[in-house]
């Protein structure tokens, strides 16, 4: 899937200082599921799935998701943060094959 790693982020259109802002992010990723052979035994291979999602804002890690193969393919994640200053929200997705994908959005006060 050549789309792997595409990220979309969404913030509310108007943000005031001090608002607790809900952020949604989505990433295109197969989140490979465990495969079993005909006998029902788990096939031993390196499954490619996102296992960590790190949210940073104003240079600090605000929240971190540990994720597993029980999370959907092309997953979305939603979280909140307190919008204290203008700045960049960065969401970094890490997968088990060492893939690292990033999405950013700007917090600006309207």
């Amino acid at each position, binding site marked *: 899937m050549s*789309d792997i790693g*595409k990220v*979309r982020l969404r913030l509310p259109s108007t943000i005031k200082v001090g608002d607790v802002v809900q952020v*949604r992010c*989505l990433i295109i990723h197969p989140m490979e599921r465990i495969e079993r052979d005909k006998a029902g035994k788990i096939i031993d291979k390196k499954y490619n799935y996102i296992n960590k999602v790190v949210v940073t804002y104003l240079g600090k890690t605000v929240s971190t998701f540990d994720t597993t193969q029980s999370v959907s393919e*092309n997953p979305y994640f939603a979280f909140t943060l307190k919008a204290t200053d203008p700045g960049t929200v960065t969401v970094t997705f890490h997968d088990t094959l060492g893939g690292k994908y990033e999405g950013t959005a700007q917090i600006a006060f309207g």
Partner: protein
Amino acid sequence: MRRPTRWLAVALLVAGCTVAADAPDYSRVPRWTTRAIPEARGEIRPEAGGRRVAVRYPGWPTTDYEKFRTYAYDDFRPEPTVSRATAPTGITGDPKTGRALFLNRQKGPCTGCHLVPGDDVWPAGSVGPDLSTIGDRKLPDGYLYQQLWDPRVVFPLTVMPPWGLQGVFTPEELVHLVAYLQTLHGPAAPEKDRDRNPFTRAKPVGFGDNLDPTNNPGVVRAEDAEALWKEGGPAGKACADCHAGGAATAMRGVATKYPRHLPAWGRVMSIEDFLAVHAPATTGRALPVESADNVSLTMLVKMASNGLPVAVDVSSPEARAALARGRASFVRRVGERNHACADCHTPEQGANKFLGGRYLADATSGLTRHFPTWRTSVNDAWDLRRRFQWCMTPLGMNMLAADSVEYAELELYLTQFDNGKPVSVPGIRH
């Protein structure tokens, strides 16, 4: 004045629904060579030992349903003849076996349409009557047997398949089913869970905002097709070279008119059908129907019309001829199940009821303006033709090529119900 009036009454009866119809004329339907990917052509491949295997999308069943009527305009086989039958003698029906057959997903399952008691009954449907206390009616075994063999003897207008006649159940299995039904007595146990019962079950809530790229992966896929729009094909040209200003500007309003009859090709075509012939002729790129690129570009083109009202032509002679044939397809009984689209997707029949766990949609309310739609269950975008082809599977019939004229005219028939309503592509569904 009686004969013309009666003819008019019959014609109106045949026309049905909400739109006045012409009688379908098949004498001038163009022949079409498919431009679809191999998995989407409806081909059957002969294998060693005389077996015939259907060439299908990955993971789809490969059964050859050769015995059963299809949508093909040149398939003149009639519906299966209404058939009377009596139960075989010498078999004692076993209710436990019957119950297992009733719930068996390889057969009906009968629970797809009918509720019966049991905590393990999930999810039963409400298209057919609740059978939880049918034993109380003390119907003769022979009557029930006939109902399962071919219910059209009892109810001529029924949508219930002629299970025995079509060979889905053997006569012996029908005897066990009858025995099971006769054990279902009232009073019905109080319902512990209102969702088990399809008559009180909560309706599906859907998957939220279909146009939000942080909710619908289909939007991400469609947006990124802009790169393909700008990319030169083997002939050295890109879509963008002739259609300047970006797809959203250049294609604004275009999709509201599709599917439409295109004189250059002599047939009704959707965006998907047209891309498959237009792209090779201009950019040199092959965009076969049901290829990922064709679906992605179709979404991109249709998104350019989001918010604009669907406005397909329904009045030109070509459109009217196509609509008549499309309507005939919509009410045509096909497949092992002997179902028509209308059986599930009109409010007079199955629409707004549960078929198993699926809430059936009403085609007359306009269902095409969200296609192609993102399917969460398969994490892929499906255009309407693939949705048609999928329906062939539970109905038990061979599919036609995705870009067949039959499907295009059925699509036109369905799209007229979206006229005036805003395009919203891609949709998002289970």
